[in-house]
């Protein structure tokens, strides 16, 4: 189709689709309403029965934990897919490993100073996901991007030393599989898959809420490694492929 026909089709489609959508939204209960029965039930169960102050973590890792298993493997599959797609194929020109342009000294200093702080925050967010805001997903992303402060600070070669991709690869699998293992703990203790059968401890302490924290850590490992692998593959692709002796990722 020519560009004009396509744009015309788009306009017609958007008018109809937009009208339907807006009409539906106008018919929906307005934002800010008081009644949220499912949410309130989840909050009550999280706090009173499951001893988990962070209701969102309780939902993600306890009440609706199976969906999180699916999401985790979705992430795993995307990372695996990206690795496979970006793997160097015979015929790609071998580029010398280069660095991005030199950053300012201020950026470099900030990067070096922030790196340990961010990584520590990342670990904290993962570990206390059941207590205050946070959890495996958020913490994993913080960890992964925190490590890349090394790249931002201008030292790509150091980054490559710190995150050997084959090791991160294994970590990714450990995280993914670890979630299943923790789920099976529930079965082992006589309950159902992903049932929270570990001791629930005292409200608001570190070792409480049973399996929620364990699952959060598993997710943190998986998301963190997955993100590192993903960013790593794109960086390798852009800045230079390694020789095949130390090739990266599961796809090679």
């Amino acid at each position, binding site marked *: 189709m020519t560009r004009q026909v396509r744009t015309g089709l788009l306009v017609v489609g958007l008018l109809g689709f937009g009208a339907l959508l807006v009409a539906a939204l106008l018919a*929906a209960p307005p934002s800010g309403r008081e009644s949220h029965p499912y949410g309130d039930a989840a909050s009550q169960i999280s706090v009173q029965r499951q001893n988990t102050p962070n209701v969102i973590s309780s939902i993600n890792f306890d009440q609706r934990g199976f969906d999180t298993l699916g999401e985790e493997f979705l992430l795993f599959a995307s990372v695996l897919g990206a690795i496979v797609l970006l793997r160097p194929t015979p015929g790609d020109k071998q580029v010398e490993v280069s660095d991005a342009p030199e950053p300012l000294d201020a950026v470099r200093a900030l990067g070096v100073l922030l790196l340990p702080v961010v990584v520590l925050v990342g670990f904290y967010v993962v570990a206390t996901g059941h207590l205050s805001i946070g959890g495996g997903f958020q913490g994993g992303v913080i960890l992964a991007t925190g490590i890349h402060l090394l790249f931002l600070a201008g030292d790509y070669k150091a980054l490559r030393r710190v995150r050997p991709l084959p090791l991160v690869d294994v970590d990714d699998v450990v995280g993914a599989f670890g979630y299943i293992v923790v789920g099976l703990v529930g079965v082992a203790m006589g309950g159902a898959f992903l049932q929270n059968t570990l001791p629930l401890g005292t409200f608001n302490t570190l070792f409480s809420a049973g399996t929620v924290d364990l699952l959060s850590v598993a997710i943190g490992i998986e998301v963190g490694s997955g993100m590192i692998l993903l960013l790593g593959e794109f960086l390798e692709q852009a800045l230079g492929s390694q020789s095949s002796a130390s090739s990266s990722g599961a796809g090679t």
Partner: protein
Amino acid sequence: MVVTVAAIVVPLGAGAILTGIGRWIPRVLLDIGALAAALATTVLTLLLLLEVQDSPSSRVVTWLGNWTPTGPPGQGFSVGIVLAVDPLGAAMALLSAVLMTLVLVYSWHHFTVSGPAFHALMLLLLAGLVGFSVTGDLFSLFIFFELTSTTAYALTGYLTAQDQPSQGALTFGATTTVAGVFILTGISLLYARTDALGLAPIGRALAARPPDVLVVAAFVLVIGGLLVKSAVVPFHFWTADAEAVAPTPVCVMLSCSLLALASVAVARVYWTVFSGSLTPDTIRGPLIGIGVLTGLVGGVMSVLQHHLKRMLAFATVAHGGLFLVGVGAVAPAGLAGTTVDALGHAGVEGALFCLVGILLHRYASISEHVLHGKGRNLEITGGLVVLGGLGLAGLPPFGTGLGKTITEHAAGAHWLPVIGTTIGALTGSAVLRMWARVFLGVGRPAPEDQSSRHSEEPADRARETGGPHPGERLSATMLVPVILLLVGALVIGLVPALRNWAAHAGAVLMDRPGFAGEVLDGVAPAPLPVEHVEGWTVERVLIGLIAPALAVVVAVAAVRGVGRAMESRLAAPLRIVRGLHSGHVGDYIAWQIVGAALLGGIVVLTAL
């Protein structure tokens, strides 16, 4: 209970393990490991089907994490997620597992892989397909939809050394991402109205009041998103582009498993969620209409193709249209027709894709033009192609033919058999014509066109397989799945118990109050009356023979070059239809938006 969860977790876990250790084990162990996992999943889904059959209500309900619902009957509530397996769901899960097992046998040894990613992604795809079939929660359905989609994008683009796969995979990815956006928006609207994410509670809440524009919009968004996967006009454009470039095993999974599952999911979501407010007669017309249109577009496009995989992809689209007609017949017999047709089609189309893959393996081409006469020595392969082509046309007693007649009768319109016959004749004729040209070498070679020019595989290293070994006569691991698939398609059409089972399964799926009662209140409904569906009567056999006969006639005419005059008169409209399939991702997304708007407009008019 355990079996349901295991059927999903086993392929997931196996995929993870293979990814972890895959780099250090030899190829044969990778093949064995993946095959073992697929076999295990097949056994598990078979056990699941048996468990469902044994259950008096024909359902197996598992509340994950033991979050069983509480509350008085009629108001059961749970914060957790439920897996609710009915006969159709179990059958679809079993179909996926069987196909995956056969396809892994087909890829044994020959298919070039680097690392464990292919096998791992296939297993994750299987897990997604099983989850998609057995879940009773709408958001979980969305997640498994995304899981199957994502693994499918990666697998479609797998042959990275070639130029085209990433394009096909990207259009596939972009259009299905839009579908995912539609579905999530629909789920949000439903959550706003009903404060629930499970199929049963949403259905219960919607049935309590008459439908309004929000319900219609949610219907269009969720069902529209699923219809992208079932490759229905105008959401079907990704199919041929993706299957033209995907590795053969992936084409089989896309065409034969994903499509069927999506059609069943459309039925399931409609019946459990929307049937209480959007009454069946409001969606009957739109669904049947879209199905017919899809069948015709697919049939015409498949005849126009000279790229073998695109030809088969459009044949899939055409048959997918018939599946939707069965769903739109809003009766157990309609769903029976869809199920029988889908199972038969999986066998026939799966076999045909594998056969084309064998041609690719031996001659590095899937162009009808280039392959002209090359297949003369492959008698067995050729014979199986003929069987496949006739099966595609619905030759009795293939399951495809049986499903077609059951669907046509269930939908009730007198002109439907004409459409069904046309679709069968068109798609069958394309395959038979290809057979005559490639395996007999008769007639003039097919014209070379843009798409077939790009169906050459480049140098050895980039090929899907490494090519045949010297002296390799028959590739057994490639042929055995083909034979099994065709035999399966025949058996499905022959066994009477199967079509009655399919009708019963349809009735169970359609029973919204029973579903909600069992899932939420733990009250199993009384077993539904046994359904009886007519099979191969003499009249149906005779009508069923028309399409294959026509297919042969059209194929002969095409090979002989007869009918050029008619072709030139149709040239202009054909060129327009063909031109719409432009390969441009922006075009495809525009059509999705227009399609959703049109569907919305039609349903608003019929329902409100």
